[in-house]
């Protein structure tokens, strides 16, 4: 045995990092690459080295003085115990990559952090790792198949994706829905909101060290997913809300299952509040962290619980009601500080409000059809196909070429658990959408992360990111 430490190859020389004058892959002909290339060459020596070392070309941070977002994003000071201002030499700044495989990034999000010691000087979110071209795929599917595609975008709120998409298609078609279809939609989406927020409480707790929250949140969410599984056949990606109504009626005994959820989830939420509301560690990690102001929310298109935590009283269920949700009685919880703790308060309160809506749906669920009886849009009941030639033809036509939608464009939005979830649909009169664009709330939230994170500490990154609740399937689509 030798006394000198050596690696496997017996090569004791430390690995050296070559510092190329220009970054690799930057000398292409396309305009953007040439532009970025010029930018790096004109930059400081330090910048050149960074471009070479991380080898990501166009995905790099801009040179500091050429980043116009910097002054906008540096507006909010973060209240923190850490107030000591160490004079910092810009040459000592370092770039750190968080992700794309970091467990706290909730999927595959990469954050490029420019650090001054422990303080975040700048952040750049880098996305696209989960991009699967779903908007392109949507153009190749018929309107009836489209719900299977959009439900996979935000996989924690599949019913909302299906609902926004179905509402857009129905508006172009001019289809009227029976009241039971609307009530089932409200029941499922509001339960979905509760499930999504429960998962959020679980991961927020876990990310800042309250590991037991992880288990509790998933435990209660499972009860809701059991109901979804019984109703739709799947725990996620249901493809249940479709243009023209819903795929099937609620299963026998659904009332008892919903009662069970209404009985158990509020008890559990009280437990969470006992665990977190006055927990000094939780308060230390969340109060005054990751602040965003109402003006910044507007400028960055941030909606949903993040905006409401900042004091914006805006909820599409009140301002642009869909599926008859305005006939139920509920409040919109609004906080004022816009920090991580207020987002927690808002989401916990929203769980209660959503369960209240679910209780009202349970009490006054109308009877009747669960989908439009327009045979040009929804398939006939199975037994009719054996009896009626016309039903057979309708069924065959619907499932081979689909239904045609009048030409036009429409934007319909619903209040998803993460904010305004909109679908912009362009039809040229065919059986497939010409263009389907999804306005993803997580996309706007991820874009606003630098606003919430700049000037905070590295540890606060985790708490802030978790509180924004981004779903990367929604961001990248």
């Amino acid at each position, binding site marked *: 045995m030798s006394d000198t430490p050596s690696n496997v190859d017996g090569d004791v020389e430390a690995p050296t990092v070559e510092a190329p004058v220009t970054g690799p892959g930057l000398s292409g002909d396309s305009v953007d690459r040439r532009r970025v290339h010029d930018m790096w060459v004109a930059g400081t020596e330090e910048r050149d080295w960074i471009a070479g070392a991380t080898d990501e070309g166009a995905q790099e941070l801009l040179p500091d003085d050429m980043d116009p977002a910097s002054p906008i994003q540096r507006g909010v000071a973060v209240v923190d115990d850490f107030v000591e201002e160490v004079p910092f030499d810009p040459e000592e700044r370092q770039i750190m990559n968080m992700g794309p495989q970091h467990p706290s990034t909730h999927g595959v999000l990469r954050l490029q952090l420019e650090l001054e010691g422990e303080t975040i000087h700048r952040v750049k979110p880098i996305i696209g790792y989960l*991009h699967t071209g779903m908007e392109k795929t949507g153009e190749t599917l018929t309107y009836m198949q489209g719900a299977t595609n959009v439900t996979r975008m935000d996989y924690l709120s599949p019913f909302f994706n299906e609902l926004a998409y179905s509402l857009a298609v129905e508006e172009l078609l001019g289809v009227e829905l029976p009241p039971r279809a609307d009530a089932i939609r409200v029941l499922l989406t509001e339960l979905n909101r509760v499930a999504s927020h429960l998962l959020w409480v679980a991961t927020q707790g876990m990310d800042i060290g309250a590991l037991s929250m992880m288990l509790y949140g998933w435990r209660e969410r499972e009860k809701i997913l059991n109901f979804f599984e019984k109703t739709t056949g799947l725990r996620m990606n249901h493809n249940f809300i479709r243009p023209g109504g819903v795929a099937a009626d609620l299963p026998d005994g659904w009332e008892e299952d919903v009662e069970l959820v209404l009985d158990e989830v509020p008890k559990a939420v009280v437990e969470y509040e006992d665990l977190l509301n006055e927990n000094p560690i939780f308060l230390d990690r969340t109060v005054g962290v990751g602040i965003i102001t109402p003006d910044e*929310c507007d*400028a960055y*298109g941030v*909606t949903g619980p993040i905006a409401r935590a900042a004091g914006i009283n805006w909820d599409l269920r009140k301002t642009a009601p869909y599926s008859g949700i305005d006939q139920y009685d509920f409040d919109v919880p609004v906080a004022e500080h816009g920090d991580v703790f207020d987002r927690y308060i808002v989401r916990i309160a929203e769980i209660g409000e959503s369960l209240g809506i679910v209780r009202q749906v349970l009490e006054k669920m109308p009877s009747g059809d669960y989908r439009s009886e327009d045979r040009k849009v929804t398939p006939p009941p199975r037994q009719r196909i054996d009896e009626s030639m016309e039903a057979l033809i309708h069924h065959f036509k619907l499932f081979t070429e689909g239904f045609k939608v009048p030409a036009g464009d429409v934007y319909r939005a619903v209040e998803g658990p993460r904010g305004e979830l909109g679908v*912009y649909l362009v039809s040229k009169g065919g059986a497939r959408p010409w263009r389907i*664009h999804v*306005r993803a709330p997580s*996309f706007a939230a991820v874009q606003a992360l630098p606003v919430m994170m700049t000037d905070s500490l590295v540890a606060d990154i985790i708490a802030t990111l978790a509180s924004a609740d981004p779903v990367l399937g929604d961001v990248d*689509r």
Partner: protein
Amino acid sequence: MTVVPRQELVEVVSRAKEDGYSTFIDLCAVDHLRERPRFEVVVNLVDRGANRRLRIHTRIPGDDATVGSITSIFPGANFYEREAWDLFGITFEGHPDLTRILMPDDWDGHPLRKDYSVGSVPVQFKRAHQAT
């Protein structure tokens, strides 16, 4: 819904913001292949005070797919314009960082264009040529 010439997009968005449409919601592009002008950019704004929505459409020719950037008015348009550039190849003049956002940065072509084929396209892996 408003249709404006592309030279006036920035001005119209700026006036709309002064008019109360201060929440930026969405920006997306549409490729109307075989129509002239070929591309369309759609901007969605909201006036929370009066509960109004405004959709601004502008058409952009295919042989000169450029339009002014609205990032100076709404910084939140940054990612949306990058997405439109990435997937449609529409250049937003004055955008601070018009680079690919969803596709890998060495990708060829703009996949959401209607003349970009679906299926049977060679898969482009980053630096695949170096691996062989």
